């Protein structure tokens, strides 16, 4: 990873690092090869016509490159409508082909965690109970879905 002052600031003080207690939705991105994980917490505002991320936080059980990716991507996603978040995820995943595989896996893990958080939110609404989704990363960048129902954090 080439480090400039902007990257250094993300390393030193990652945006949105931490968790949201009682989050509207939690999504997990996981690398099945090494067990690394990204957990994204979102709060959602539905007062307008489309659901919007009103608050976002992430935790990384992973390397510093993943932390930087989490900082950059969650900063971008904060305040976006779900459709804009979907665009952000698509753009991020689309860019991974041009990045070295290790760095690609880190960014992919964040992107799929974000996808899991918004999909989990929509699914929770549909099912009437909280759903936490875990998406595993793949070389192909298409998330493999795995269901897990998780009780809300006390």
């Amino acid at each position, binding site marked *: *990873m*080439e*480090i400039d*002052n902007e990257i*250094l600031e993300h*390393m*030193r*003080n*990652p945006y949105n*690092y*931490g*968790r949201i207690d009682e989050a509207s939705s939690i999504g997990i991105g996981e690398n099945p090869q090494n067990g690394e994980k990204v*957990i994204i917490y979102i709060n959602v505002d539905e007062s307008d016509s489309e659901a919007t991320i009103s608050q976002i936080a992430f*935790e*990384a*059980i992973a*390397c*510093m490159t993943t*932390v930087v990716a989490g900082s950059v991507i969650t900063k971008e996603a904060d305040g976006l409508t779900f459709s804009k978040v979907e665009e952000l995820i698509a753009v991020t995943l689309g860019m991974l082909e041009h990045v070295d595989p290790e760095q690609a896996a880190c960014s992919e893990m964040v992107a799929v965690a974000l996808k899991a958080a918004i999909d989990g939110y929509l699914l929770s609404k549909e099912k009437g109970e909280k759903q936490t989704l875990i998406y595993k990363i793949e070389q192909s960048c298409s998330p493999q879905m795995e269901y897990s129902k998780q009780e809300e954090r006390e």
Partner: protein
Amino acid sequence: MKQLFIKTHEVWLVTLMASFMSKNSETKQSLNDFSDILFRHFTWLERELIKSGVEYDYNRDSVPIKVDSLRVILDNIVERLNTMELMLPNVTDDALRFRIQTDWEYMKYQIGNLADEEVTAFSAKREYKDFNLSNEATDALTLFLFEESYKEYELIMIYNYLKANSNDDYLNKIFQILIDESFFHLKSFGQMMAEMGILAVPRVIHESIYKVESLEEFLKDGIDEELAAKEQCKELSDAVVKEAKELAKFFDFINYQENYHIALMQDALRHFEEKGAE
């Protein structure tokens, strides 16, 4: 008491970071000693929580430390201790409460007398001593220091949690050695980060990392991680050996220290397996 435990964790880290920021050897030593004492308070409070059957974790708020003047962070430490005083009556053990209170009083007095200094630990200059490192070597060193300072903090917290929640004396002796070793590494890396102008507080650790489901798996994975850390040290040493022989020697030294950590973890694993077989 849980809140006091969390705040003690935070003030320990702030004091440790302040010790890295100072360039005055006496100030640095005082802050370093105080941070060690605050960490001990943290472990004693943890013991009280366990004795009282209170559920706890190592979650905490992020601790901002970016300052231009040492006095600002010193005042912040004193302010934190003053706020924590209001929580002290929740400590029911009289001896512990008295001990913490008197330690804080002395710390506040001493910190109040420390001279101000200009802080350059956040300058982002990314130069170490007089070494003329290439951009590639500088990036590798920067990334290594961020990764490994977090890793050492993580190891301190993991072994501390395991030790606090285990009654196995044999394992606990090993965990204590590994805690002491990680403290040395964390302090070495933190000092280098401050000198390079890239000082940062390690991020909060997710509880699944220290609340391990299987000690056996944890030790096996830990041995693999130590092997990977050795490899990283070797790569870094090779990357800087031409431009900075002293730095290369330091990373070799850290690399060789990892051998003993691996041996200790293998010993812990053997003990655990034998105990399980009994």
